[in-house]
């Protein structure tokens, strides 16, 4: 069960982690600075997608398959969270009460 990561793959994964970290920092600037709320919502959504990539890279780096559920989980929670934010910005209410 003990697998070693080859030096080439290790270097590539570290470079990718650094790249995605830079991407998250740039997106964080958009979250803090963004002129309108939809800008912030889109930036938070993209940060979540970068977190999925980060979890996948971490799973490669640690040579484990236990993170695969986490990646799917982040995706699902991100989708629901973004839908809730979008619906709040659009209609002001998240669950319609007297509809249909």
């Amino acid at each position, binding site marked *: 069960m003990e697998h070693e990561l080859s030096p080439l793959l290790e270097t590539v994964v570290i470079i990718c982690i650094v790249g995605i970290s830079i991407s998250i920092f740039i997106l964080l600037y958009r979250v803090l600075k963004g002129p309108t709320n939809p800008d912030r919502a889109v930036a938070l959504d993209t940060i979540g997608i970068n977190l999925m990539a980060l979890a996948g890279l971490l799973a490669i780096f640690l040579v484990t398959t236990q993170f695969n*559920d986490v990646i799917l989980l982040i995706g699902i929670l991100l989708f*629901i969270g973004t*839908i809730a934010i979008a619906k709040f910005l659009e209609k002001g209410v*998240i*669950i319609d009460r*007297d*509809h249909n």
Partner: protein
Amino acid sequence: MRTNDLIFRTTTSLIAFILLGFSFYLLLAGHNAPGGGFIGGLMTAAAILLMYMAYGFEAIRKIIPVNFKMVIPTGLFIAVLTGIGSFVFDQPFLSQTYGHFHLPILGDVELATAMIFDLGVYLTVVGVTLTIMLTIANDS
């Protein structure tokens, strides 16, 4: 004001099934992999919440005619019952056991009584989460 949510509703009808399947997988996989009753219950609550967001309160209350406040005591009752069940076999409270069974399609599977306790946790988490969400959403 009625707005057209065609894309959102079509996507929801597809994704809610995937979410419910994933939550069921997490509930069953909790013994040997990450997962279990808690996160499975949260995922089921997320799927039902997604349907509530897409179709509104009244429509889903007709589709899922379950009072989520009553799901909480049901889950707690199941969890306590697995603890009391160990008294029948002259064992300490909350003892657990497992056995290998031969099922028609699945073949040889290992069934543990901890699964029933997990089911109780699952129902409790679903009930608590949806009660909180719908209570907050329902105040006027």
